[in-house]
Structure formats: C-alpha cells, structure tokens
C-alpha cells in the first residue's frame, strides 16, 4: 500500500510537470506578450529593453523555472482580455462548472447503478429491453445535440424551461454562487446537467450491466446461492462490490471526458463556466488564460484520478498485497 501511494503521488507530480511544460511552451510560442502589453507603435529599442526586463532573453530552463515558481505561487499570468490574474478569472468561473459536473454526476451515479443492476438481474424483462434500447440510442446522440434538442423541445416549443444561463444564484462564500438554493437556479441547472450526463449515463448503465452479469456467473456467487443466501444479499453484498471495482477504474478515466463535455454543454446553454470561457479565450487568443485553463484542468484530472485510484485501493482488499497497475 505504501509503495502504491508513493507511486501514485510521484506519478501525479510527473504528470503535472509535463502539463506545466506544455503550458509553458504554449505561452512562449502563442501570441507576443509585448504586442499585447505595448501595442505596435513602440520602437525596437524599447522592445528589446522590455524583453530583457521581462526576462524573455533568458535561457529556456531559467524561464521555465520562473514560470514554474510563479505557477506554484498561483501566478499564471494576467489575462489579456480581462486584465485580471488568469487564475482569478478561472476561479470565478470554477463554481459554475463544478455545480454542473456535480449535477450530472448525481444523475449518473443515482441512475446508472439501479438501472445497471436491474438490467443485469432481469435481462429478459421488457423494462430491461427498453432500458437497453434507450441506452444504445443514448450513446449515439452527441452531447451537444442532446442539449440543442432539449432547448428546442422544452424551451422553444414547450416553454417549460429556461434555455440559457445560470439564472438566479445564491452567494455562498468567496467566488461561489450556487444554483441549488433557489427554484430558478434549479430550473436552470436541470437541462444542462441532464445533457452533460446524456452519454455517460447509458455508458455506465451498460458497463455496470456487463460487469454485473459477469460477476453473477462467477463461482462465488454460485456458492453463495448454494449457501441459501437471500437473492437481495447476493446481488447487493456479493455481486455489487465486485461489480464496482472495474466500474470505479472506468469512472476515473471518464472524469476527463466529463470535463471535455462541459465545454460543449456550457457552449450550448451559454453557461458561464470555465468551458465556455476557454472557448472564448481561444477565439481571442488570450494566451495566459488558455494556459491557466490547461493547468487548472490538468490539476483537476490528476487530483481526481489519484483519489479514484486510492478509493480503488481502499475498496479492493487484494491491493494491499499484490501490485496495482496492469
């Protein structure tokens, strides 16, 4: 377990270093900071002087170490467009995205486990067949299209739901305003959350079903039956825990995809989160903001993946002895 822990943390650090390297390379090559700072009418001499002052003529490694040092202190540069520290811009948008992810995760976890287990236990029931048919349709509709069709149906045609924005939010603390404390907030977050979960949910239902069906074929489940254990106990104590082990691993991998989907969802619903901000930054060639987004998102991935791995290690009793990984 110790080696496992150290290994995970070292690996996380290595990945973060690689991301910072990429971020640094982008910063150095994309857009000219002098032009952004000075405009075009400044003489070449002044430019050179400023280059020197800003340390742009230093060796690569010195510049990178400076970038890294600043990044560790939370300084990821100043957004060209907002004229604010890039990290601050992102942190302001962060809660909106996280609430969206939270809403979608709630839907996915809350529905995929019961639906997956049900379809595995009763594979031949009509309800299972309907669920499985819907799930394959679900994984075939791109997230953005689900979002658009929902807007068209529920906002434009039926007028039941608001079509864009976060609506009324309640301030909690710091940069955090929440959707979950007002009726209008709830109304605004439902459609984006559903849209965000629309591919992931059927994916997990199918995964849980497949794993569960495998586990139900195993010898230990048969032995549990031979012991006369009640079916609910076999399904939920014997089978579910074994089912969830691979599901947790896949879940960790899917966090990245989820963050990518927030960009799509936020764009369709004009959700004021990090994702839509990132696309705008790309259109404005706002390099510090792009780099900052990259690093923040990379950090989120690394943290969540490490946590997921540790959870896996805690849930799986065999991890302590045998090695993890392949």
């Amino acid at each position, binding site marked *: 377990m110790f080696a496992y822990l150290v290994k995970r943390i070292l690996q996380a650090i290595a990945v973060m270093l690689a991301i910072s390297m990429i971020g640094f390379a982008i910063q150095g090559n994309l857009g000219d900071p002098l032009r952004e700072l000075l405009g075009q009418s400044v003489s070449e001499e002044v430019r050179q002087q400023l280059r020197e002052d800003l340390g742009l003529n230093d060796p690569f490694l010195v510049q990178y170490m400076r970038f890294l040092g600043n990044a560790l202190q939370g300084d990821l540069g100043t957004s060209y467009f907002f004229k604010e520290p890039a990290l601050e811009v992102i942190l302001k948008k962060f809660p909106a995205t996280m609430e969206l992810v939270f809403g979608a995760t709630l839907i996915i976890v809350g529905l995929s486990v019961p639906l997956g287990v049900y379809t595995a236990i009763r594979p031949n029931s009509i309800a299972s067949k309907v669920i499985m048919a819907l799930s394959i349709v679900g994984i075939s509709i791109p997230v953005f299209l689900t979002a658009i069709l929902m807007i068209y149906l529920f906002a434009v045609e039926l007028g039941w739901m608001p079509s864009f924005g976060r609506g009324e939010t309640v301030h909690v603390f710091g940069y955090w305003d929440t959707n979950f404390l007002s009726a209008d907030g709830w109304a605004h977050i439902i459609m984006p959350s559903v849209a965000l979960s629309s591919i992931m949910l059927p994916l997990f239902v199918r995964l849980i079903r497949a794993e569960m069906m495998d586990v139900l*074929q*195993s*010898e*230990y*489940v*048969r*032995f*549990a*039956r*031979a*012991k*006369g*254990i*009640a079916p609910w*106990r076999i399904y939920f*104590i*014997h089978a579910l*825990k*074994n089912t969830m*082990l691979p599901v947790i691993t896949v879940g960790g991998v899917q966090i990245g995809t989820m963050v990518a989907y927030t960009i799509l969802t936020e764009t369709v619903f004009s959700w004021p989160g990090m994702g839509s901000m990132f696309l705008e930054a790309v259109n404005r060639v706002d390099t510090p903001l792009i780099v900052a987004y990259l690093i923040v998102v990379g950090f989120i991935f690394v943290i969540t993946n490490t946590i997921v791995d540790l959870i896996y290690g805690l*849930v*799986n*009793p*065999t991890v302590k*002895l*045998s090695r993890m990984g392949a």
Partner: protein
Amino acid sequence: MTLLSVRDLTVKFATRNEPVTALHGISFDIAQGERVGVVGESGAGKSITGFALMNLLSKPGFIDSGQILFEGQDVTQMSDRAVRKLRGNRMAMIFQDPMVTLNPVLTIGQQMIETLRAHRRLSYDEARQIALVKLKGVYIPSPEERLDQYPHELSGGMRQRIVIAIALLLDPQLIIADEPTTALDVTIQADIMELLLELCRSNMVGLMLITHDLGVVSQVTERTLVMYAGRIIESGKTRAIINDPQHPYTQGLINALPQQTPPGTRLRQIPGSMPTLSMMPSGCPFNPRCELATDLCRANMPDITQFGEVQVACHEVQRLQADLNTAEAAQ
C-alpha cells in the same frame, strides 16, 4: 432410512435448435449418513447431477422431468424460497476450486456468519462463536484471526477447509462435494479427503462425492455410481465395483490406470472418446468404443439389471446372466 431419492431425473440444455439431453432419466438413492461416490469422465454429467439436486443448474440447463425427493419432499416442485431454506442448511455443497469459490471482497467471517444468519435467528456474536467452533473443527490454526482475513490471504488448502467449514455450519444431512480436491496438490488432497471422511463419519452426514478419481472413491465411499454420457451405467457397493466391475466401460476405466499394468508396458486403453451431447449415438452410448458391442447395443439402450452385487446397464451382461440362468435351469 432414505435421505435422498432421485427418480428418472432428466436434465436438458436449451440450445439454438432442439434442447439437448444432459441427464437421461437417472435414478438413485442415498441413505442417511451414507457416502456415495459418483465417478465418470468429463462430460459424463456428474457435476450436472450435483447441481440439479440443489436446483442450482446454471442456464441454459433445466430440469425437464423427474423427482428429487429429499427428506420426503420433492425439490423440483418447491418454491424458490423453500429450496433456499434447504440449501446450505439441510443440504450443503463443496465446490471444485477453492481459489474462486469464496467471494474475494468479503472476509471469511462475513461469509460464514451470513450463512448462519440466513437460516437461523442468531445475533452476530452468536453466529461468530459458531463459526469459530466450526473453523476449529476443520483444524484451522488461529481461527480467530482467520475470521477477519480475506480469502486471498490464505492458501488453497486452507480455503478448501473453510469451504468445508461453511458447508458444515448448519449441520446438514447431505453434503454434495463436486471434485473437492481436484484443484489441490496431492499431499493437501489427501488431508482434505481424510478430513471430509472423518467429519462425515462423526456427524453421520450423507456424502455425495463427485470425482473422476477411482482411488479417492475407493477410499472414501461405501457405494459408487458410474456415469457415462448422462446415464448411470453401473452402481453398487464400492468394493464390488472396484474389485469386480461388470460394465465394459467401468472395466476399461479401471484397467486403463497405470497401476494396473506392469511398468514400461502399454496401458490398456479404451479407444475413442466420450460422445458429445449433440452427437449421441443411438442405443448404448458406449457402443462405438465397446469391443463387445452388437447390433442390439447399437439399436437399444439396455435397462438396468441386477447382476451379482451390482446393477448394470449392459446388453452383454444381460446375455451372460441369461446364459447362466439357462445353464442353471438345465442342471
């Protein structure tokens, strides 16, 4: 007193086309405390028999017809709930491979206690105490510690002892052991067999021992059923079958063992191999491999008849008996 009585049990497997028959109307009895061996090669239907008794056939297998009377009740007619009350309680099972029989994410204690509490109103602590006693009964060192361990922390032999302890938890009347030592090493195998024998003797538990190993059968059981291609082709006292088998297949099986021929010489092999379920020959299923096969054998399945101490299903044996009878009558 008869503990278990199986009558004309037929098990089929659903396939794409017609269902295929895995057990062809087999009948046998097990008396209280009796140890019965079921011998045969892979595909003979011996494991299927074991699982059918517990009503635990996995899909696509199903019981087509016949009766399984356990303590006077027909298992095939019982509700799921009633069968569940029987399993692990009156009738327990030991599986082949201890490495995959225990749930890897539950501790030994959890897996034992849940079994007790599924059948009896017991507090957690009471159940734990019983589990401890049973672990001691199968000679597990430091049983207290084992209860909190996970299966992967124990060796194969130790796990099979735990499986046996679980089977004995509720003092069942019958234990069905499906190749309980095949996955284990020779020295461990002998230990486990001895333990099983000792426990069955001392607790007066009936044992149905499913195995391919004639040596094990001869050491542990009192009566033996020999199966071939889904049928019982010979049954009787184990001694009688080992010392004087009547069916050509049983004879072939015993003669093929390396111990039966002097070292370095050719073994007496049975030609060919067992037919698969979908390509069953007509008549006696053994006829394509049998030296004595006649047209009668190729046309009709022989009935089971008493011959000396054993019951055999073989036309040749019947003919022999008829000859003997006429000879006697002539005298």
